[in-house]
């Protein structure tokens, strides 16, 4: 609504791209819920929102990768269907996807002219000409004959942008292009945007960095849970102080606690009626930090993991977690969170450094132990990749509940599965964790994300956990499950079970944790105690990327 009115204020002619009522549903997820917004010529339009807010789905609809269930797209006032990436490109919409779309075995030039040459032969000279042209617009220097897979990540990013611009003469869409870029690279990108805007191009730009949106954007639209939560027009962006803008955007993104609760109440009345006692987020928040904290239970000494083309790695991580403590890992996604979680869980060996876990009364070295051994010592891991990693979709709920205990008594005796025990275990988990499933034998892929999360949580927290690593524990969940998960983490902490919570949602971390470690490019760049100023401190570290 805001977006539409903002659009109509500017001029009376039709916007370059106008989308109305876009809805897209995936099995179990409403990714886009009646989204409407418009994109203007010569503007950088920033899309903000948490992970799972529906930004990537919206982008893949615009780029022809996904077709919406409902809604229309108007290009310069004409209703247009985008059924394939080809059509999007023909309309002049170029996209830089979140995942790499370069073919690693081809050269830069080959990647660029793929799908972009007419005629019988590869017109390399024309390709080079266009590459030089675009490179000079972007102000970079590119070796056309380098093999794409050999390039560094930020170099690849530039190629991706050039690739999108090749045909993207109308609009350029970038899905989190800065996630892998160094600060200098981000600045460089800003300059590129200026040049491209001057050429009349519309740019849609997804980022997590508020300052980037404020500095580079002409218009900001915030998505939340598949809907447009609000937007800020160019006039406001230009006139307001950046501090004020930031507060405003944060408010739209996360909502003030009061408005958040209001929204929840409005959207999920039935939920709150079902569980009135769990409804109060305010009450829950006030619990945080009020516990007694015990002796160190988990200790990381100089834990390092070598960087690779796909990851920043980890560099000299030193952390200590106390019994009953909840440590939050904050930071923009892709800065080493997944690596840290896997190193802690035992899924990945450290390249150097040591990890110690409190066991039998003293700290024992565990970095050479596997998942199963660590699990038996009480260290558990709730993965964020619920369907891809944490569960086996083609297997039943009851089996998924014992997936990490294969071979252990009482579920297996002499290597033979004890179906009765497994069934009993499943029934108790289903009851205790309120897992909504037709039966314990149902394939877990049939369950909703929230119920799958409950299964995982049940598996990891039953039978004497000591410390649990939660990777994005509430990502993509409905509010009721989200509250239940948080409550469970809090409740276990009260019982002395520590937790490491990795999350992209600052609000969630602030709600749950006693202390925060901020990760950036595989390093801990700051440790912040929870308190009134914590949000500002973490925000500074996160969005600034520099230690304050």
């Amino acid at each position, binding site marked *: 609504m805001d977006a539409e009115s903002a659009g109509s204020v500017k001029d009376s002619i039709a916007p370059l791209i106008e989308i109305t009522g876009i809805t897209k549903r995936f099995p179990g997820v409403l990714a886009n819920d009646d989204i409407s917004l418009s994109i203007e010529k010569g503007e950088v339009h920033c899309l903000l929102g948490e992970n799972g807010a529906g930004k990537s789905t919206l982008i*893949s609809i615009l*780029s022809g*990768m*996904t077709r919406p269930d409902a809604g229309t797209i108007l290009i310069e006032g004409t209703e247009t269907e985008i059924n*394939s*990436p*080809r059509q*999007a*490109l*023909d309309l002049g919409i170029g*996209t830089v*996807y979140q*995942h*790499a*779309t*370069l*073919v*690693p*075995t*081809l050269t830069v030039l*080959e*990647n660029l*002219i*793929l*799908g*972009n*040459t007419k*005629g*019988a*032969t*590869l017109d390399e000279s024309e390709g080079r000409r266009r590459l030089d042209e675009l490179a000079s617009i972007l102000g970079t220097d590119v070796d056309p004959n380098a093999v794409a897979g050999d390039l560094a990540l930020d170099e690849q990013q530039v190629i991706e942008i050039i*690739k999108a611009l090749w*045909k993207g003469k109308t609009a350029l869409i970038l899905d989190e292009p800065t996630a892998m870029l160094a600060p200098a690279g981000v600045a460089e990108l800003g300059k590129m945007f200026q040049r491209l805007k001057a050429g009349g191009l519309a740019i849609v730009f997804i980022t997590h960095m508020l300052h980037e949106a404020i500095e580079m954007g002409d218009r900001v639209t915030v998505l939340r849970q598949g809907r447009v939560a609000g937007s800020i027009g160019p006039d406001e962006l230009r006139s307001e102080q950046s501090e004020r803008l930031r507060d405003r955007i944060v408010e739209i993104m996360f909502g003030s606690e009061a408005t958040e609760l209001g929204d929840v109440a409005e959207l999920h009345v039935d939920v709150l009626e079902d569980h009135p006692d769990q409804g109060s987020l305010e009450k829950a928040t006030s619990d945080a930090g009020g516990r007694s904290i015990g002796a160190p239970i988990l200790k990381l000494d100089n834990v390092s993991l070598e960087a690779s083309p796909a990851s920043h790695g980890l560099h000299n991580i030193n952390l200590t977690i106390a019994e009953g403590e909840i440590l939050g890992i904050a930071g923009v996604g892709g800065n080493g969170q997944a690596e840290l979680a896997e190193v802690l869980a035992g899924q990945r060996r450290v390249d150097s450094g040591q990890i110690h876990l409190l066991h039998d009364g003293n700290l024992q070295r565990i970095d050479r132990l596997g998942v199963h051994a660590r699990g038996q010592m009480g260290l558990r891991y709730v993965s964020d990749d619920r369907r891809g990693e944490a569960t086996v979709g083609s297997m039943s709920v009851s089996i998924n509940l014992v997936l990490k205990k294969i071979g252990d008594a009482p579920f297996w005796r002499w290597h033979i599965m004890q179906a009765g025990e497994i069934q009993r275990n499943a029934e108790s988990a289903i009851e205790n964790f309120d897992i909504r499933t037709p039966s314990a034998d149902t394939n877990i892929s049939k369950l909703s994300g929230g119920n799958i999360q409950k299964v995982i949580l049940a598996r990891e927290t039953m039978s004497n956990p000591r410390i649990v690593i939660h990777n994005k524990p509430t990502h993509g969940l409905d509010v009721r499950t989200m509250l239940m998960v948080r409550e469970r983490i809090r409740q276990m902490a009260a019982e002395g079970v520590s937790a490491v919570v990795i999350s992209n949602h600052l609000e969630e971390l602030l709600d749950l944790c006693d202390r925060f470690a901020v990760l950036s490019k595989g390093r801990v760049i700051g440790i912040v105690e929870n308190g009134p100023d914590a949000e500002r401190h973490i925000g500074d570290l996160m969005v600034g990327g520099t230690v304050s």
Partner: protein
Amino acid sequence: MFDETLITAVLVGAIAASVPLMLAGIGELISERAGVLNIGLEGMMLMGAYGGFWVAIETESIWLGFIGGAAAGALASLVMVFLCVRWGLDQIVVGIGVLLGAEGLTSLLDAATFADTRPRIGITARLDIPGLSDIPVAGRVVFGEPYMVYVTLLAVAVAGWVLWKTPWGLAIRATGERPEAVDAAGVNVVVVRSLAVLSAGVFGGLGGAYLSLVSAGNFIPMMTGGRGFMAIVLAMLARGRPLLLAAGALLFGFATAGTTALQLVGVEVRPEIVNSLPFAVVLAALVLLGRNEFLPSALALPYVRGER
């Protein structure tokens, strides 16, 4: 015994043995480059051998026969196109189905048409440039082969050119590595793969037709004798480069023809060892390189947009 004529003979034999492998190999190479493992190649060759011979007998033209062979091979590959490329069904299961089906069908058709009379097609014309084809040792090989040999070499060159110098080739190479990137670049993955599999059928058919039209002059059930599988291996060895494929096929042909020649001087090389060599080489290369880069990374994986 190793005089000029014998060396010539070994070269001629090497060419004769390698041409069907080259033809079928080119097709498989293109298909693999696009990410489709075509296990049914042997079946496509058989279809080409029969179809080519049938057309040649009906039209009394060897060239139309080759076109018929290509068409018959393409017909067999359509099964792969629809089931594997369009519907994303398993390439191995369907490939085995195509192989068995083609074996059964060609034997059946042969029984119904040629089995009683075993008609033969006249000899294929050879290039004969007076003077040049009489040059000692290499003259016969370079200037005096059946025309189809030159067509095959031309096809190798053209395939190389298409793969490395045209937008089509670029799309094919990219599709075998990262189909989602190709899709994002606005190239229709299904169309690219369909055409790649079709060319596997066309070239496989031509390879089979060479056996029936040039090597034998008639069709015999199961006459391909495992050459389709050998072509698959050679295509892998070539790592997507048609010239390497041609070299590999020639080397294999040379090894088999050389073995025959060695018999004449009383040296026995066991055919089992010669036949194992290409496979052992591919394995050794894989072990030494110790990685999958040897093969297109999306090989044998179906592509459906949005499902990766």
